[in-house]
């Protein structure tokens, strides 16, 4: 990457903004948040050390914690794989020599720009209301309308749709990855008489696997912290069926001002995210294929 130059401190001058930002706005807050999680800090007043009580409280006397945790797991489990699989399939279709690929690519990407905006959440609410347009459309085809946002069994799925709808950014990464696969690999496979499915499983997918990993990690981190759609569309309801972890953190910290408890909750989330990302990384050794270019 660089020729062997002698060390100089000039570089520090350029990275100084980040260095300051990292220390003041990331590192110190991280330490503080860890400290708060062992206190009863409530915004006003002092933080008093209470040991592991916050952590004990979650598991022993706060039923919303376990509920919210399970809702969040469901959400991540539905939204992330659907989004990535969808992005991959569409990228594969677009990667054929198709006219107007730019047009479709742009069109599919638009939802990703609007993503977490309140406007889209509001729109979703109107689409899936009882008298909303989705039920109207269904009734035309003779399917009875559903209470998409009021039925605890459906609400989380309806919210996940907002996420899957934004598959565009993952799709762009897959498209870029597909363009990098050397044509000679395909030719060799075809000469060997490999079928389409075999080519996909033996060449395309392994070559794309680093991008699958990247998408998986990033989407997972985001999904565990999802907030806007659940907050605006359903406010966590009905019956807390869409009470995602982000909503609970917000409620505890900024509605009830239980800063200590909320910090403890955020560290549990951090631990969960860390666990699943490292699990994904670890498992990736067996399924991610890196070309010999690295």
């Amino acid at each position: 990457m660089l020729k062997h130059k002698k060390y100089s401190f000039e570089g520090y001058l350029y990275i100084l903004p980040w260095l300051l930002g990292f220390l003041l706005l990331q590192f110190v807050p991280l330490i503080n948040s860890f400290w708060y999680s062992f206190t009863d800090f409530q915004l006003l007043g002092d933080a008093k050390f209470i040991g592991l009580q916050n952590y004990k409280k979650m598991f022993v006397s706060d039923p919303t914690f376990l509920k919210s945790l399970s809702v969040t797991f469901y959400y991540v489990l539905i939204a992330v794989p659907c989004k990535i699989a969808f992005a991959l399939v569409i990228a594969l279709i677009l990667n054929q020599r198709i006219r107007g690929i730019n047009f479709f690519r742009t069109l599919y990407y638009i939802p990703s720009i609007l993503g977490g905006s309140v406007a889209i959440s509001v729109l979703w609410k109107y689409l899936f209301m009882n008298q909303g347009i989705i039920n109207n459309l269904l009734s035309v085809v003779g399917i009875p309308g559903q209470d998409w946002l009021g039925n605890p069994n459906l609400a989380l799925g309806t919210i996940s749709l907002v996420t899957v709808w934004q598959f565009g950014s993952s799709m762009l990464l897959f498209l870029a990855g597909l363009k990098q696969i050397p044509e000679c690999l395909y030719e060799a496979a075809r000469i060997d008489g490999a079928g389409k499915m075999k080519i996909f499983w033996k060449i395309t997918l392994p070559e794309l696997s680093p991008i699958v990993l990247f998408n998986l990690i990033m989407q997972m981190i985001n999904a565990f912290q999802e907030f806007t759609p659940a907050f605006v569309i359903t406010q966590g309801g009905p019956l807390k069926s869409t009470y995602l972890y982000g909503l609970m953190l917000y409620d505890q910290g900024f509605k009830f001002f239980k800063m200590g408890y909320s910090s403890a909750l955020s560290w549990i989330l951090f631990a969960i995210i860390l666990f699943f990302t490292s699990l994904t990384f670890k498992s990736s050794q067996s399924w991610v294929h890196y070309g010999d270019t690295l």
Partner: protein
Amino acid sequence: MINKKHPISKILSYVFLIVLAYIMTYPLLWMIGAAFKSNDEIFSTLGLFPKNPVFGAFSEGWKGTGQYGFDRFLTNTFLMVLPTVVFTALSSTLVGYGFARFQFPFKKTLFLIMLSTMMLPATVIIIPRYIFFKKLGWLDSYLPFIIPALLGCFPFFNFMMVQFFRGLPLELDESAKLDGCNSFVILKDILLPLCKSAIFSVIVFQFVWTWNDFMNVLIYISSVAKYPVALGLRMTMDISTEFNWNQIMAMSLVSIFPPILLFFTAQKYFVEGIATTGMKN
């Protein structure tokens, strides 16, 4: 994939892509139509196009909550977003240049730290940050958005710029150095003109993200006079009766217009930028 395809399967692909495009954009098209429908028509008809277009939803909705209108909310959003975007572009360029072109003690460690903060969930540090900004008296101002941008707290963009600078040939720097240019002149006069597409994608990304940001504005901005459009829109939705659907759709449309416009004008750079970051890991 160069593949002699049967025309049939190609046609099927097109049909699929077009149907999907319709499904994907349907909510947005419906939104546009709804903004011009009367409230009686919004949920009673299925067509996207209004039968009797009305235009009052925009002027009525624009008034917002009575006290503050959407002109105020939009101005606020720009006051928050523009400095954030400019400072992000600036800091990420400097930091990217620093990491890509200089050798200094602990560089590897620091770079690794920066990469790992990309995966640090924002929710973990949100409370201490809030308290820190509160102590500084920055609550209910846009400083909690602007200062982190100035201090390069968006590792994703720093990383993007590092990758981009790495892709530029080192000979450029070296010949300029022989001519006696210092490192800042090299950045400003030689490398920067080549970074346009990368900086452009930083700008577009950050503009869109800050524009859409909801959780942070919800936490930091408390007075209605300072509400950005995201909070203004939600408040309008909450306080309005069920008869104002078309106004809310009209204002939702207004609120997503600037990011859409920016995306279309900068689309080429934007797509390039994403591809660059994703690939060269």
